[in-house]
C-alpha cells in the first residue's frame, strides 16, 4: 500500500481576502481531496486563516515533503528558502507587476518586484514544471527556460448574488475593481469620465480596492479634482464581499485601463454577474475576456468613451456581451477551473507518490 504524498505549498502571505490567498487555500483543499497530506507555509499568515498556514521558518523541523508547490507573486524570502530545498518543486505563477510601474511611486516596492523577478528566474532553473494561471504567464515562464508549463485558471469562489446596494445614482455607473496601483492606470479611467461628461453622458466612476501606493492614490484623487469630476469619482477602498456584490449589481459597465494583469479575477466576477466589460487589451486581458467583452487595442479617452457609449446605448451589444460574459465566466470559474486544476495536479501527485 502506497502512502499519501506529502505536498507543501509556499506563498509570501496567506490571507483569505486576496486572490492569491484564496487560490492557495483552494489548491490545498483540492490536494487533500485528492488524497495528499498538505501544509501551507508563508512569511505571514493572517489571523483569519491561522489554522491553515504556518510560518515558513518552522518548515525545516517538519517532515520533508514529496513535492513543493511555490505560489510566486512577488519578491519574498520564501522563494530563497524554496530554491534551497532539494525536493521536486512546481512553480505556480500568478505574475509579478513589472517594477517600472512602481519606480517613481514606490521605489521600495519596485525593488521588491525586481528581486522577485530574479528569484523567479532562479526558480525556473530549479523547478521541474510550472502552473500558470494564463497563457500570458506561461509564456513568461517558458521565456525563463521552464519547458513544462501547464495553464490552469485561478481558483476562486464565485460571488453570491445578494449584496449591499449602494446609493442610487441617476446616470451610468462605471466600475473598476482592483488595487489603486500605477499598473492599473486608474488615472486613465478618470480621463474617460471627463470625456463622458463632456459628451453629456451622466456617469460616475467607482474604484473599488485598497491602495498599493498612497502617493499614486492621492495623485488620482488630485487629478479628479483638477478635472472637475471629484464628485463623480467614488473611492470605495477595500470592501466586504456583500459590498462588492452590491457595486457589481449597481454597475452598468466594468471598465479597465490596466496595463498589466496576469489573469484579472474582477473581470471574471463582473462577467459572471452580468456586467458588460470594456477593457484595454493589455497583458492577459484579451485571453481572459476573449469575445465576451469589448477588448480595445487603444485606451485613449475617445475610444473608451465610444465603447462605453455603445454598450450603454445599444441593447443588442449589451445583451450579447452579458450573455457571452456569463458563458466565459462559467468556463473560467468552478467547477470547470477545479477540474482543470485537478487534471494538472494529478500527474504531479502520482510522480510525488511513486
Amino acid at each position, binding site marked *: 500500500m502506497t502512502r499519501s504524498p506529502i505536498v507543501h505549498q509556499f506563498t509570501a502571505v496567506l490571507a483569505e481576502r486576496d486572490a492569491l490567498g484564496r487560490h492557495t487555500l483552494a489548491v490545498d483543499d483540492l490536494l487533500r481531496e485528492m488524497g495528499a497530506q498538505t501544509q501551507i507555509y508563508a512569511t505571514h499568515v493572517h489571523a483569519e486563516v491561522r489554522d491553515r498556514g504556518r510560518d515558513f521558518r518552522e518548515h525545516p523541523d517538519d517532515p520533508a515533503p514529496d513535492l513543493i508547490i511555490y505560489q510566486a507573486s512577488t519578491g519574498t524570502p520564501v522563494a530563497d528558502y524554496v530554491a534551497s530545498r532539494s525536493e521536486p518543486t512546481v512553480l505556480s505563477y500568478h505574475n509579478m507587476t513589472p517594477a*517600472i510601474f512602481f519606480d*517613481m511611486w514606490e521605489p521600495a516596492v519596485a525593488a521588491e518586484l525586481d528581486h522577485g523577478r530574479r528569484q523567479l528566474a532562479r526558480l525556473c532553473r530549479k523547478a521541474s514544471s510550472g502552473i500558470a494561471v494564463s497563457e500570458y504567464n506561461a509564456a513568461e515562464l517558458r521565456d525563463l527556460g521552464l519547458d513544462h508549463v501547464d495553464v490552469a485558471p485561478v481558483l476562486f469562489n464565485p460571488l453570491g448574488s445578494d449584496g449591499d446596494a449602494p446609493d442610487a445614482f441617476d446616470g451610468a455607473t462605471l466600475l473598476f475593481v482592483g488595487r489603486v496601483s500605477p499598473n492599473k492606470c486608474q*488615472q486613465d479611467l478618470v480621463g474617460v469620465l471627463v*470625456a463622458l461628461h463632456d459628451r453629456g453622458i451622466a456617469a460616475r466612476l467607482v474604484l473599488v480596492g485598497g491602495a498599493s501606493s498612497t502617493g499614486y492614490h492621492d495623485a488620482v484623487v488630485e*487629478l479628479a479634482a*483638477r478635472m472637475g469630476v471629484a464628485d463623480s469619482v467614488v473611492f470605495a477602498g477595500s470592501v466586504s464581499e456583500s459590498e462588492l456584490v452590491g457595486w457589481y449589481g449597481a454597475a452598468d459597465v466594468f471598465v479597465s485601463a490596466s496595463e498589466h494583469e496576469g489573469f484579472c479575477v474582477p473581470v471574471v466576477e463582473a462577467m459572471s454577474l452580468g456586467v458588460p466589460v470594456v477593457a484595454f487589451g493589455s497583458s492577459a486581458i484579451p485571453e481572459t475576456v476573449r*469575445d465576451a467583452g469589448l477588448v480595445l487595442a487603444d485606451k485613449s*479617452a475617445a475610444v473608451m468613451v465610444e465603447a462605453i457609449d455603445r454598450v450603454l446605448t445599444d441593447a443588442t451589444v449589451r445583451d*450579447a456581451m452579458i450573455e457571452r460574459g456569463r458563458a466565459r465566466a462559467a468556463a473560467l470559474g468552478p467547477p470547470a477551473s477545479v477540474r482543470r486544476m485537478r487534471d494538472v495536479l494529478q500527474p504531479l501527485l502520482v510522480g510525488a507518490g511513486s
Partner: protein
Amino acid sequence: MSDPLSDEQLPDDRFAARIQAEVMAAAEERRREDPKLARIEREIERAWADVAPPGAVGPTEELLLDRVDRLALVDVDAPIGTKPGVKQVKGAIRKGIYWYLRYMSDQLNAFHNVQARLLRRFDDRLSRLESVIGVDSAVDDLVYPAPTAGASSGRRLADAVGSGRVLVLAAGAGAALTELDNAYGVERDPQVALAGIDAGLDLRVGDPLEHLCGLEAGTIGAVLIGGALQRVSPAAAIALVASAAVACGPGGIVAVAVEDRSRRADAAAELLGDRGLAPTTWGAILGGVAASTESVKVDDDGLEALVVARLS
C-alpha cells in the same frame, strides 16, 4: 451605424471583432470632427503630468531609459547589518568590504555608464530617423492606401497553399480572404477593415507586424504580405520575411503582393519616389529563407505580381 448581426449570422469571435472595429472607426471619426475631444485628451495628460512625480509619466521607452540610468550606478555602501557586536570588528569588516566593493563597482559603474550613454545615443538617433522618415497625416492621405492583395492574389495563393491556415497582413477590406478557405486578415485601419467584417470575413483590427511577431513558431500555414508592408525598406523587408518564415515553419509559404510602382497616382509617385521593392528583389529576399520562389502575374488593382516562396 448598421445593426449588429445576430449570433446565427456571425460566429462568436467575429461579433466582438466587428463591434471593436466599429468603435475604433467611430472614435477616429469623432476625433476628426470634434477638435474639442483632442483638447480634452491633452488637458487630462497635462493635469496628470502635473500631479504625478517627475519621471512617472511619459513614453515607456523614456521611462525605461531613466531606469537604466538609475540602475547603472552600483552603490558601494553595502549594508552589513545593524545587530550589536564588537565595534572594532564591525568597523574592520566595513572597511574591507568597502575597499573591495569600491574596486569592483568603479569598474561596473564605468561599464554601465557607457552602456547607458550608448542607449541614449541610439534612442536619439532613432528619434531623428523617425522624424526624417515620418509622414504626417496630410501626406498620408496622398500616398495611402497602398494597394492590398485582392481576389486574384487570393486565388493564386489558394492554388499553392495546402490545408494550413493563411494569415493576410495589411489585408485592407479582405478581398484576398474571399478566395481562401481557412484564412484571416489583420488590418490597421478600422474604417477599411469594417467593410470586410461587415461582409462576414475574419478580419481583425490591429497592428499587422505586432500580430505577426506575437505568433508562435510554426503555427501558420502561409503568410501573405501586402498593403503598406510591401513598401518597407530592404532591411525591414528582410526582417519581415524572416518573422513570417518563423511563424510558418518548414514547408510553409510566404507570399508578397507587390505593388506596380508605375501605376501609382502622380502625387503618390512623387512623394514615395522609389519606395517599395520590385518582384525580383522580393524574390531574392524570399530566396534567403525558401527552397523555391515563383513570381506570378495577378489582376488585382495596383499590383504587379504575387511572389510566392515555399520554405525549406
